[in-house]
């Protein structure tokens, strides 16, 4: 299952946020999307996931056209995204959040609450038991097993980030879309984070598309890098080639230097 963007364009008022971007995101590797602030990275994410459909162009996933589909339908097809700030389901516990991510839609209806409909009887109970087992496994894998009964709004920022991954994995994705996973992560933990993402994807054969500002993080983790500047895809290639590209240096590292002076 690969994600294919063909001539994707998004305009806000008179501003071209994403200008005819075409790219192929394969399923068996980690792909990074970098670019300075306002380059159109999140806009592209929103276009792919149905939150803000593109004005032109087509997006296909596994050969199936997904632009124009509502966000929940895109997610059902296996494209699961995160958001820049990992707020989560604030009042739900870790366990509830993870179970909610795994629950099929037909259990989440008034009928389903009374054990009727497609989740009737033994089938429904088996689905629930399987989800509980997977919750335990994934929580253990991510080191969240002691926090299962803690509410999301009482987790530390780091644990909340881990919960993002946990929820995504519970939803049984085919490809992960990560929006700035390294934001607000202490530099000392970046290495651990990139290992984690790599391992989660490799073990499950998941593809992933990652947006981030943190170049060293992306260079560690990505198999392929796409560079976006003012809505235009200016370079694509393996991390080493991108790091050596003078045009990328100019638009991107200039921005990095400016950012380094900030907080």
């Amino acid at each position, binding site marked *: 299952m690969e994600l294919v963007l063909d001539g994707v364009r998004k305009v806000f008022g008179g501003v071209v946020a994403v200008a005819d971007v075409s790219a192929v995101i394969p399923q068996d590797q980690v792909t990074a999307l970098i670019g300075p602030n306002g380059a159109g990275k999140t806009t592209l994410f929103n276009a792919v*996931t149905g939150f803000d459909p593109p004005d032109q162009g087509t997006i296909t996933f596994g050969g199936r056209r997904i632009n124009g589909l509502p*966000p*929940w339908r895109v997610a059902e097809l296996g494209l*699961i995204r995160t*958001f820049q700030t990992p707020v989560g389901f604030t009042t739900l516990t870790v366990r509830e959040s993870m179970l*909610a991510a795994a629950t099929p839609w037909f259990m989440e209806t008034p009928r389903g609450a009374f054990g009727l409909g497609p989740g009737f009887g033994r089938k429904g109970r088996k689905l629930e038991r399987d989800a509980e087992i997977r919750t335990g496994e994934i929580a253990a894998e991510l080191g969240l097993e002691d926090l299962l009964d803690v509410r999301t709004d009482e987790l530390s920022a780091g644990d909340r980030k881990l919960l993002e991954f946990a929820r995504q994995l519970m939803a049984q994705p085919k490809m992960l879309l990560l929006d700035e996973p390294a934001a607000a992560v202490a530099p000392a933990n970046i290495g651990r984070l990139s290992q984690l993402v790599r391992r989660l994807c490799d073990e499950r054969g998941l593809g992933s598309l990652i947006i981030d500002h943190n170049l060293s993080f992306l260079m560690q983790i990505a198999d392929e890098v796409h560079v976006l500047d003012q809505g235009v895809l200016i370079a694509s290639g393996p991390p080493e080639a991108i790091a050596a590209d003078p045009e990328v240096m100019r638009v991107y590292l200039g921005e990095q230097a400016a950012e380094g002076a900030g907080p």
Partner: protein
Amino acid sequence: MTNPVFWVGVLTLALIYGSLAMVLNVESGWGGMWDLGVAGLLASGAYCYIILGIDDPDLGTRFVPGLPMWLAWPLAAAFTGLVALAIALPSLRLRREYFLITTLAFAEIIRQIAVIQADLTRGTTGFSSLDRPFDTLVEPRDYNYVLLGIVAFAALVVYLITRRIGTSAYGRTLRAARDNEALALALGKRVNRMRIKTFVVAGVLIGAIAPLYLFYIRAITPQLFAPGITFTIWTALVIGGIGSIRGGLVGAVVLIVFTEAVGLIEVDPQYINILVSIEPFLVGLLLVLVLRFRPDGLISERNAFGTRAGRRARRVPA
């Protein structure tokens, strides 16, 4: 003060409000839909029940269906579900305060229809001396106890239904989507469809409770469904604890008993007007005190859903 019949009536009313507050909690507490149109749904159920049961042509209404009570009751609930669907489809395109205003407007429209469509509803005259279940079996003065029994049974059923919803995967996802709609969508949750269904379920339940309210009041006019009743139910829910399971019931009992007890204070007749006008003030004071000292209500959502282990783990340093 010591008249038991009086307190039977107070408890009956409290359980009716409590049932409505538990239903409101499903859509507003867990579903995050701030519904200010409870009065409209209650009116739909009540009028549908009354109109289907009309068996006296002398009342001058256009239809005299004369359906028996046991048939009119479920039909009234189903009809209210349809009204709820009609309200939900446009209103759920809006969020939060915009949704709230729209539902309030729909409730007022329904009340105005009840005034204007006098050939169906007898307008502001309304209906009185309604038949009540089992009222031929006991002496009229003992009927209050029968009604309390019926209402208590209904409150139990509503409690069991709403608790089942709250503890199911359905309730969990409702709360998830309330906390973070974008995230719920990103996990493949059919948020809008789920909310519409929830609003309709709430409508059916409110429609099913509506006849009980009529049995208690024993008369029906459009004025009965002014917004005040919606606010009373909301106040009960806030006092009891939005998002908890039993909060609506507990809050309604506290609120109604408190309100009625204020009315019982014995004062010199010359001060009776002051007492009457101070009553809403005291209810407001109760609400403020609850919000000050128990901001999540008497029973909070955290206590209803958090496990003991989770409450202990709160002390774990971040």
